[in-house]
């Protein structure tokens, strides 16, 4: 990663930018937040990549087992009396 985007955060809006960006900000276009859009795009990418990596793991067996137990028990009986 390049080191050239170090100075663009502090001197951009002095912290008052939030008032107007509040109303119309979307994650993808973030240049109005006063930070480099490059770094903001990277944030979005990383965030989704991390999250999606977990999502792709699907449904672990323990949860399918749990649902099977709950099905067998039926919703009317005591709800957490397992073990």
């Amino acid at each position, binding site marked *: 990663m390049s080191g050239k985007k*170090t100075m*663009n955060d502090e001197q951009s809006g002095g912290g008052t930018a939030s008032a107007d960006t509040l109303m119309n900000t979307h994650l993808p276009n973030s240049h109005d937040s006063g930070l480099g859009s490059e770094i903001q795009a*990277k*944030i979005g990418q*990383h965030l*989704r990549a991390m999250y999606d990596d977990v999502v792709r793991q699907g*449904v672990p067996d323990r949860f399918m087992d749990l*649902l099977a137990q709950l099905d067998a028990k*039926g919703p009317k009986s005591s709800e957490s009396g397992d073990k």
Partner: protein
Amino acid sequence: MTNLDPALRDEIIAAIPNLRAFAISLSGSVDRADDLVQETLLRAFANIGSFRPGTNLPAWLFTILRNLFRSEYRKRRREVPDSDGNFAATLTSNPDQNTHLDFEDFRTALDKLPSDQREALILVGASGFSYEEAADICQCAVGTIKSRVNRARRRLGELLAIEDVEDFGPDKTTRAVLAAG
């Protein structure tokens, strides 16, 4: 109601991977996240009667999970994320991502955010909820969510810009631990 509607059951199952991803991002630990998801499912089944069909099931489940996390959090506080159970350790592979170091920088920075900002950012930026849905889940105003997301992004940007320069942040330790394990 005697039995759970199969369609509803399928919808709940479909939401589990997302619930896990959200729970891991909240708790910083896979084990605690899975316990949270389990407790969420138990609550959901026990209270399925209070879910109104046709409304947003994922948002309902996320709300349960978040409330559980919040009440637990008050009890135990957030533990220091251990490198066995943290987000980075759950990454199975990231071949198309730049480098592993990038990821660790990012995760470290994410962990530094206040939890209300982190959850807002995750809900909107990763889970794909609208600001309105995220506000429902967090039981706050839409404007509050927007400002939390903005502050989270700004803070992350600052943290990552700094780590870009330093090149080695607190991550050095993490990598040492990972390498040792």
